[in-house]
């Protein structure tokens, strides 16, 4: 089995109307043995920007610290919060630095991007383990259940979803996808990011 499947786990992000959502399962395993049902792999970067790290668990921890350091350095130097597009480039270049000995992580990024007029517009992106960026207008997926996530999301997602509808859509997509994946599941967490607040909910899932 590939090292990308060693610990299991999946992340998905979706665009809604003036909002974005990012969600992941909570499983941590070693091959087919489940170890933990509260292993979070989505982390806040700013108030309106989240990043998810599905992949090798040790690299989840490492990259979380790497990006905490680099985002702090950016904030101090620039004296402003990092924007989603900039952060995506940071993720990409950080991963590409290790082009020939990569971190085994495929990051998913979701946030609200500040426009010149001061409003916010939804932004999602994902990269592969060496930093190739995929900007998408609808949804991005990664992790061991990615094929399943693609299938369900393609069937359920529609443009212009309001926050609560987006929550339902991303939750249903994630839950039904991970229930068909042996390496993902054991509960889930969903963050819906809107202009004013972030709604975070933990979902109970099948434990088999």
């Amino acid at each position, binding site marked *: 089995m590939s090292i990308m499947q060693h610990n299991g786990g999946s992340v998905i992000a979706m665009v809604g109307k003036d909002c974005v959502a990012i969600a992941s399962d909570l499983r941590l395993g070693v091959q087919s043995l489940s170890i933990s049902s509260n292993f979070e792999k989505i982390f806040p970067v700013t108030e309106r920007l989240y990043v998810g790290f599905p992949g090798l668990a040790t690299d989840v921890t490492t990259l979380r610290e790497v990006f905490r350091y680099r985002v702090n350095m950016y904030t101090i130097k620039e004296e402003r919060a990092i924007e989603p597009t900039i952060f995506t480039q940071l993720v990409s270049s950080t991963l590409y630095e290790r082009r020939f000995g990569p971190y085994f992580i495929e990051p998913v990024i979701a946030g609200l991007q500040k426009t010149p007029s001061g409003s916010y517009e939804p932004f999602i992106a994902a990269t592969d383990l060496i930093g190739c960026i995929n900007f998408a207008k609808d949804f991005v997926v990664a992790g061991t259940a990615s094929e*399943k996530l*693609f*299938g*369900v999301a*393609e*069937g359920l997602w529609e443009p212009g979803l309001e926050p609560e509808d987006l929550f339902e859509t991303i*939750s*249903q997509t994630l*839950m*039904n996808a991970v229930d068909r994946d042996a390496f993902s599941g054991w509960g889930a967490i969903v963050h819906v990011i809107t202009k004013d607040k972030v709604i975070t909910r933990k979902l109970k899932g099948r434990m088999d």
Partner: protein
Amino acid sequence: MPDGSFSHPQQRQFNPYTENGGTILAIAGKDFSVIAGDTRQSEGYSIQTRYAPKVFRLTDRAVLAVNGFAADGNMFVKKVQQRLEWYRHAHAKDMPLGAIARLIQTMLYGRRFFPYYVYNILGGIEEDGTGAVYSFDPVGSYEREACRAAGAAQSLVQPFLDNQIYFKNQQAPAGQSHPLHLPLSDVLAIVIDSFTSATERHIEVGDGLEIYVVLTKGRPTQDLEGYRGVKELTTRPDGDRVFLIQRELKKD
């Protein structure tokens, strides 16, 4: 030899299998069954043809969808059809669906040590008039189900079906329960959505869609009449009936 020398006889094994892509799916209703498959046949990154059917009418009450290695699939369908013809000659009637399912299991297991590299889904009407779906693995393990997807996009379609057909992860409104069987129009909409989704995200799925609908004896057909270009394939009156709906899928 791993050392690349020629001091030992060189062995090159002929590989008798290939994969020809595509996806199939079937859903059973209370008094109907829907069996569908795309029509693309491919090998590697090449599309061999945009129209190679992999869903076949066996009798007026049974339809078989075959996916995997196309040459094995065609040969397998041919042999099943031959056995069904012999059965007609011996018993002066069509073989019942459950018996066809058992026949398929026996035929697949008969090749346990040189398998037909094929995933089968059999759909149709049971003798009690209920819609049924039987799904098989290449060596004959089978079970009756309400819905099943197989083939290249199985992993994309099956969780979607879990959600939309079995209502998995959905809670019924208080005091209510989810329907056990969906109406035909809902099922057809889900089938078409499944294939357009699979076409969007899987390169081996596309070109055309063939949906077979089997209706139990005496069932009204008005919910089929709304569909463009429905062809009836039934051979005998006053029994279960088979219909075919064809749709285009994206060709890229």
